[in-house]
């Protein structure tokens, strides 16, 4: 049994299996990662897509099989390491032992990486907020737009409140990653409040939490809907989705008013350099009948059916990712340990043995 556990052949089979599974996950769109492409594959395969689902090939990283193989690899690595440790003790020849030690350090750090990645995944916390400027949210589970928590994460909420004060667009390079967000982070355990501008590469750090600017931003126009008597049916900042298609970014969405059976479609056209007020394309439908389709500025009020519509103000919104990865630095230590081990192994391989080192 020990021979099997430390055999190189088992290692080859396990690494091979993982490689094949990863290649499959690159070919078959994975749910939660490449959602949009799943529909086309489902259409392509028709009803045989059921087999993909049954085998779990559309969520390979979350199937038990994937973790069984990783677990076996961890055992194989541990056994291999122990066995190789014994070999080092009993062998002589410095160069030969240096190579063995390098390889030993490399494989042990692989083990460290695999274990710390899995442990970190189990307890990690990742919450995505979609906030409009001026909006303040508490750290309650339902306040998040989306969360990616580890299965064993014990979510104690109410640790902080976060306010997005302003989304700052860098005018000269108006690209998604030239954006920053001015936020106020208020810890609820009495620590001083933190007011910070965060951007890509510059997150806000508080104890084990990190608040990152979340790469996507967009527009939140204020939609006002009045009935014939002038009383307000709807008034609020509506966060429009940001969709990037064919290399162009569109800010468009629809708002439904169920009682009045109205659907309001809104699209925002930012002013050229993004600083002046944008214009809005608004269309109003009721039961498939389009009553209005026009360009609106913040000053206009338009009527459709017996209602009046206006977009008096607008704000920007962006994603803010709150993350907590307790064991991530162990993973990173594992990276550098592995690379050092392999480099030591390589140097001792390349150095000619004859140079009096035997």
């Amino acid at each position, binding site marked *: 049994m020990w021979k099997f556990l430390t055999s190189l052949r088992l290692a*080859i089979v396990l690494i091979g299996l*993982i490689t094949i599974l990863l290649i499959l996950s690159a070919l078959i769109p994975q749910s939660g990662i490449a959602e949009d492409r799943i529909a086309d594959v489902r259409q392509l395969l028709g009803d045989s897509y059921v087999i993909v689902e049954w085998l779990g090939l559309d969520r390979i990283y979350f199937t038990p099989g994937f973790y069984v193989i990783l677990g076996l690899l961890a055992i194989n690595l541990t056994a291999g390491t122990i066995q190789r440790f014994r070999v080092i003790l009993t062998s002589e020849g410095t160069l030969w032992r240096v190579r063995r030690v390098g390889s030993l350090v490399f494989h042990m750090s692989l083990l460290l990486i695999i274990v710390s990645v899995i442990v970190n995944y189990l307890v990690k916390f990742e919450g995505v907020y979609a906030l409009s400027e001026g909006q303040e949210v508490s750290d309650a589970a339902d306040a998040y737009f989306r969360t990616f928590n580890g299965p064993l994460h014990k979510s104690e909420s109410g640790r902080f409140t976060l306010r997005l004060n302003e989304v700052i667009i860098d005018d000269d390079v108006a690209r998604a990653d030239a954006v920053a967000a001015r936020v106020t982070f208020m810890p609820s355990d009495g620590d001083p409040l933190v007011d910070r501008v965060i951007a890509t590469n510059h*997150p806000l750090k508080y104890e084990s939490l990190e608040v990152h600017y979340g790469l996507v931003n967009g527009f939140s126009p204020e939609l006002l809907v009045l009935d014939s008597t002038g009383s307000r049916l709807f008034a609020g900042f509506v966060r429009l989705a940001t969709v990037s298609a064919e290399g162009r970014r569109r800010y468009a969405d629809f708002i439904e008013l169920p009682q009045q059976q109205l659907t309001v479609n809104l699209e925002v056209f930012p002013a050229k350099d993004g600083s002046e007020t944008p214009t809005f394309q608004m269309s109003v439908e009721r039961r498939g009948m389009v009553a209005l389709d026009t360009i609106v500025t913040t000053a206009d009020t338009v009527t459709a059916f017996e209602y009046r519509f206006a977009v008096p103000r607008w704000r920007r919104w962006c994603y803010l990712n709150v993350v907590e990865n307790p064991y991530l630095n162990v993973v*990173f230590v594992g990276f550098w340990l592995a*690379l050092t081990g392999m480099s030591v192994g*390589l140097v001792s391989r390349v150095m000619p043995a004859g140079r009096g080192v035997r």
Partner: protein
Amino acid sequence: MNLIEQICYWTAALLSAAAFFTSLLGTVFKRVKPFRFAGSFLTGALGVLTAFGVARWVRVGHPPFVTLFESMITSIWFLLLLHQIIFRLRREQGTVLLLPVSAVVFLLMGWAFSLPAEATPLSAALSNVWLFIHASFATSGAASFLIAASLSVIYLLGEKRSHPPQANSAPPETLAPLKTILNFLIFGLILWGVMIASGSIWAHVAWGRYWAWDPIELWSLISWLVYALLIHVRLTVKFSPRWFCRLNIIAVAIVLFALWGVHYVYETIHTYG
């Protein structure tokens, strides 16, 4: 590209073509002299490509790491540099490498030329130290794998008795020793490993997610595991060297796909993709 860059680019392309042609001549007609020309042509190509990189760096303000075109040119530069080192340290092996390396350089320059060569300004996310580590190790890693693949080609050609003249009838083992191929694999794995590690740390710093199963991350990890597999297969003695060399060539194709092919097929957050 401004005038200086264009001159450098085309000179480097011509020199690599000349190196390929002369080393091909030397191989076919079993003459030694053409190989000497080919050697100096490739040395010239390295010099001129360095001038290209410097001229562009001065003009644009950041090293050629950002666009796909730049990433390819930097890989070619590392390949020429690695070959130059081998050429100086082990003349015979360097000479034998002239044919495959000049072919690869010439083909890559053609592919690079089909890509938009315009330099894009360095956006906020990219202007940080991790870009230089991540991109330079990716390109140098690819170069090391390309050298291993070139040696494998020589080993396979060597077996068919069409290797250069001066190595009378030396068996392929001395021209492209499997031990050297293995060392370049491990060297490539270290560089490629640093690329994946630095990319993951950078992604964590940038947007709080150290691994997002992005297609480029995935294919880079797949390439890394394929080479690790290749090394382990090589270490179980019974494995036929010919298959080891063939797998080497397939593996480098996956690396080139991971680096420059992915964006043809996938939507990826890698801006240069």
